[in-house]
């Protein structure tokens, strides 16, 4: 009799865990928001280097607290596009505040949005605009702007594509390199998984409305994996964040405009999207400090190396 009772208790306990409510929403912060200097609408083509319109309250000075006072752990997860720059900024932040540990993970923009919304991490990262539904769950902070390059193997002879050609290639209408001036080989389309912010931004900006990426595409789970795949296949084509461009892949010029950070800043390169940090509600404590750091001069200087700073 007693063993049966023990079992029942365990089963009920387990069932209780199964029913546990989702994360309780964080209590709204009484302080006015200080970390969104720019509105998060679609990116304006011209990006002046003068600072964005002043926020309602003056931005806090870069080092408001004594470096030795801050301590704790900040977890971040999400877009693989944001990952490298987040790691560089995190390293700088950690050397400034030795008591804080910042943990950066990848997973894709979808992971960033979901983890931030559920509170699984402190900061989520996304490389695309939020959908209206997502915007009700998380607060975005624009970290930088980034271009998406169309890349191929470095031995590829074709150098320039029109935006229409890119759309046709990725939707499967153009299937051979010979149709765009290259060798007579089948184009191997390599794309990202559906949760990718890079993919979502690419689809929105390049493909006509309602079109989808061909189902023959090979899907890779991150920017790095996509780059590896393209760099190893002479007939491949893919899309990649600017921050991942290196000498293992070749980036096409789109409509005659080479894929460089300068062109993205000038607004002449057509495929540019925002990089966002997402928090559940307003950030507080060391998370707030970190975001301020990212948006302040030190952080933006690091951003400017491979991406377009917003400040």
């Amino acid at each position, binding site marked *: 009799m007693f063993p049966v009772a023990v079992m029942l208790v365990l089963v009920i306990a387990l069932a209780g865990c199964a029913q546990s409510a989702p994360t309780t929403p964080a209590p709204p912060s009484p302080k006015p928001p200080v970390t969104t200097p720019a509105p998060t609408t679609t990116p304006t083509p011209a990006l002046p280097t003068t600072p964005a319109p002043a926020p309602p309250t003056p931005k806090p000075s870069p080092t408001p607290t004594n470096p030795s006072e801050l301590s704790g752990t900040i977890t971040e997860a999400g877009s693989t596009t944001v990952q490298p720059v987040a790691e560089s900024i995190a390293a700088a932040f950690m050397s400034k505040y030795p008591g804080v540990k910042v*943990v950066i993970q990848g997973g894709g923009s979808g992971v960033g949005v979901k983890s931030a919304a559920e509170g699984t*991490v402190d900061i989520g990262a996304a490389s695309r605009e939020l959908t209206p539904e997502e915007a009700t769950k998380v607060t975005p902070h624009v970290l930088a702007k980034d271009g998406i390059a169309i890349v191929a193997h470095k031995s590829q002879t074709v150098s320039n594509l029109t935006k229409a050609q890119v759309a046709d290639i990725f939707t499967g209408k153009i299937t051979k390199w010979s149709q765009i001036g290259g060798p007579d080989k089948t184009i191997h389309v390599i794309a990202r998984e559906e949760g990718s912010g890079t993919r979502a931004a690419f689809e929105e900006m390049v493909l006509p409305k309602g079109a989808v990426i061909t189902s023959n595409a090979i899907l890779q789970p991150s920017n790095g994996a996509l780059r590896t795949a393209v760099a190893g296949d002479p007939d491949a084509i893919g899309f990649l964040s600017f921050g991942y461009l290196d000498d293992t892949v070749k980036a096409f010029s789109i409509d005659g405009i080479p894929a460089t950070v300068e062109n993205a800043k000038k607004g002449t390169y057509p495929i540019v999207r925002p990089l966002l940090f997402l928090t559940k509600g307003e950030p507080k404590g060391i998370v707030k400090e970190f975001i301020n750091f990212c948006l302040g001069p030190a952080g933006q200087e690091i951003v400017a190396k491979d991406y377009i700073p917003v400040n």
Partner: protein
Amino acid sequence: MTSASLDSSPRQAQASGRPTEKRSAYRLSPKTTQKLAMACIWSGGIVTVLISVIIIGFVLIGGIPRINLDFLLTPPKGGLSGEGGISTVIVSTLFLVIVTIIMLVPVGIGAAIYLAEYAPDNFMTRLIRYAVEVLSGVPSIIFGLFGFALFVTALHFSFSILSGALTLVCLLLPTMIRATEEAIRAVPYSHREGALALGATKWQLISRVLLPSALPGIVTAIILCIGRAIEETACLYVTMGGSAAMPTSLLSGGRTLSLHVFYLAMETRAFEKAMATGAVLIITIIVINFITNWLSNRFQARLRGTN
């Protein structure tokens, strides 16, 4: 009367007066068939050896030159460059294994004791045994899904070593139970009779006679589980997160050696580092296998009384 079909020569048959069969020109003699078959069988064996040599050799030859103290002691330099070493990864792996074993061993041994000593032959026992069998066949991604749903999300442990360890405990429990039960059952019956004759309670019998006698087998079981835990990738991929930082608490994320090989191979082109990490993994597993074999041989020897 010997069977005519086993004769290889029609002439022989004719000479001894037996009716000769009409043989088709295509039919091979049994001797030839045997030679062909043996050739196929031997080539099967050679191909198998080749496969294992190629896989293990490739990783070891590609990886071992890269393993040096520097590689083992520096942390990986972040998710992209593939630079750096594997110090944090080694620590995460050790941390994970220790936490898993701490939780796995008591439950596994307890369950094995129940199945070996206490279980009456009723429906409940059959249910438990059935559950152990089914669990051992479930693929590890399903455990990962379960761990993600229960530990990461519902219990809010988030991507952490704790979630990974709990998921691993669920995955490894059948293995631990089976191996431990074998070890306990292998203890000779005379030991139990002796203890009971001296007036021991059942628990005293178990704790003072059976477990110590079965100890080598139990230790083998634990080491087997450690080996399997290090190999595991799929269920940890979805419960531990991909962070390459040094874990500071049960709730920090981490990467095991297997996961690190996966991330290196997929994210960066640092194939040499991936192979070096793979080589570390293979060497660890070879050492663990070796220890397990040695221990189980000792265990068998001791039971046979030849120790």
